[in-house]
């Protein structure tokens, strides 16, 4: 089991013929994901094929609506340039795609102020933008998380970061903790899915028995999540917060990773998590031992 994506996922790729889109479509096909459609305006009628992936050629459409109608795609992943990402997300939502994963980094935040209510008005879920996507190991991969660092198992992972996520997944895997689903929600100030959305999905997923949440400086999403965990979660949660050494007022790469005044510091977040019963690792490697303390050995890699 898993959250958001599973064996029934029929994936569409927006921007399938672009540099990033074509590279990662191949990776997803190789991983076994059912990529059923691609969208590139003007290339409707062509196909995207890769013999090495051993999958049938993927039909390309001019519009998401055409692609959705023809293929029944139920998840889309977006690799288009930043100034076109808002339109791509809205096109997917308007076409009725229920899960939209936007990998694109650098989407203007004012675009997101319009995209967010649009996606809600259409009853869709957006993950990202500026996120690595998600993976349910052994089942389905949507986005760019490297498949080989993951193994199936009982741990849910949610993170605002990209490579830091890989680092931690890698450590979990090496320690024998497999994952139900790893979700990168992205580091932008306005994104479609937050920690609480993922935590509640993991709480509801019978296959998940423990959760790792990886936060960073900026905003109050981790603090809100901590409150949520203490009130609504029965499963153990362990955390990590990046940015203890970040100076205030400077944007640490991610548009959302910025300490404004006294809000959004790592200290504040660590405090909120610990107060809510979520142990926080001082080092990435500590997350593994914190998790080990809270999980019976038998559960560690049971998928």
């Amino acid at each position: 089991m898993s959250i958001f994506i599973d064996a029934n996922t029929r994936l569409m790729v927006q921007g399938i013929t672009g540099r990033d889109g074509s590279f990662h479509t191949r990776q997803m096909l190789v991983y076994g994901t059912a990529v059923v459609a691609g969208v590139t305006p003007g290339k409707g009628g062509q196909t995207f094929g890769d013999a090495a992936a051993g999958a049938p050629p993927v039909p390309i459409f001019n519009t998401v609506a055409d692609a959705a109608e023809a293929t029944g795609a139920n998840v889309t992943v977006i690799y288009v340039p930043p100034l076109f990402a808002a339109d791509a997300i809205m096109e997917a939502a308007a076409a009725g795609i229920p899960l939209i994963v936007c990998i694109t980094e650098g989407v203007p935040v004012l675009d997101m102020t319009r995209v967010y209510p649009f996606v809600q008005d259409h009853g869709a879920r957006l993950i990202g933008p500026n996120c690595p996507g998600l993976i349910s190991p052994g089942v389905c991969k949507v986005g760019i998380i490297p498949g080989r660092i993951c193994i199936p198992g009982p741990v849910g992972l949610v993170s605002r970061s990209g490579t830091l996520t890989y680092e931690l997944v890698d450590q979990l895997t090496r320690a024998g903790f497999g994952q139900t689903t790893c979700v990168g929600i992205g580091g932008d100030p306005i994104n479609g899915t937050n920690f609480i959305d993922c935590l509640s999905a993991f709480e509801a997923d019978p296959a998940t028995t423990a959760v790792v949440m990886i936060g960073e400086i900026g905003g109050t999403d981790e603090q809100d999540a901590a409150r949520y965990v203490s009130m609504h979660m029965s499963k153990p949660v362990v955390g990590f917060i990046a940015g203890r050494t970040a100076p205030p007022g400077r944007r640490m790469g991610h548009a959302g990773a910025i300490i404004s005044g006294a809000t959004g510091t790592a200290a504040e977040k660590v405090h909120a998590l610990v107060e809510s019963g979520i142990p926080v690792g001082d080092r990435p490697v500590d997350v593994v031992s914190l998790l080990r303390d809270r999980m019976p050995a038998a559960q560690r890699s049971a998928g």
Partner: protein
Amino acid sequence: MNIHEYQAKDILRRAGVPVQPGEVAETAAAAEAIAARYGTAVVIKAQVHAGGRGKAGGVKLAKTPAEARAHAERILGMSIKGLVVQRVLVAQAAEIASESYVGIIVDRVSKRPVVMVSPAGGIDIEEVAATTPERIKRVAVDPRYGLQPFEAMQCGFFLYRDLHRARAAARILRQLYEAFMESGASLAEINPLVSTPANELVAVDAKISIDDNELDRHPDLAALRDETAEAPSETDARKANLTFIKLEGNVGCVVNGAGLAMATMDLVKYYGGEPANFLDIGGSSNPEKVINALRIITSDPQVRVILFNIFGGITRTDDVANGIVTAIRQHPLRVPLVIRLTGTNEHEAVRILASAGLSAMTDMDEAVRAAVAQVGAETAA
């Protein structure tokens, strides 16, 4: 991206906001000429991207053109928080009956632009928020509709009790909102918005920050960037498409990914070191980026060791290795190098590094400890 007060005022003026008349000068003579032309008292204001310029002596009232020249002479070239003043704004001094604050930010909780107004103007809004929060009114604007006239009027009446000024403030707020949206701003504020003895409103100071992600859409705004107002290493990094922030330590860090970069800095600190910088080479790195990263870091004389921490996903570790080898061949390093590489094409990367006599670790914790130990060793030596 921050822009200068005079640039922000130009944007507001074009949006219709009544702005205190003023012109920018790069020399004391030009400042004197502007003051003479106005024939009124003027305020000479340093144009730098730093708060607290008033306390630093960067804002002065001049009653005569000669006085304007003297103040400009003193302020031009002055250093405020490490930034050298290149320009001053020479503005007609406004008669002040009262001062308000009006501003707009993007709020991450409501996911909306939020208009904030306060009758406690002229001071930092965060200070007002901390001490007298009831003196701030916030309106989260539904971006599907934009700032409505009734919302602007509610703010206007929060600031002023009379219809004339409430309406004027509402009009200014709607103009500010338009300017905010059209500029792709992340912040736009007028502080103070001055009410004159004749009950007219005028913007006396203004600040606008543009979302960097919008700049490709607004080449006119991108052109407002003042590189003299930034640290040279950061300008350099930006041009090389690197995200770089200079810090005070001596462990130079080169990492792929912002979260991992922060975690690396944190780990340096955990083991007793001090990071010299935040540097994210991004996802799809190529050797050129690595070369630029090394060049920028090594130009910092404080750096005593350089730590690479690369987790290859999209990033190909062999690209990184090639970049390191090429850079070192061009400019041999004068400080030790600790490399951690794992992920995509790591065997090839190790081979490339070995061919240049370099070795790599695979564990992050170990690599950070090694880097910090190098500094300790050097300091002890």
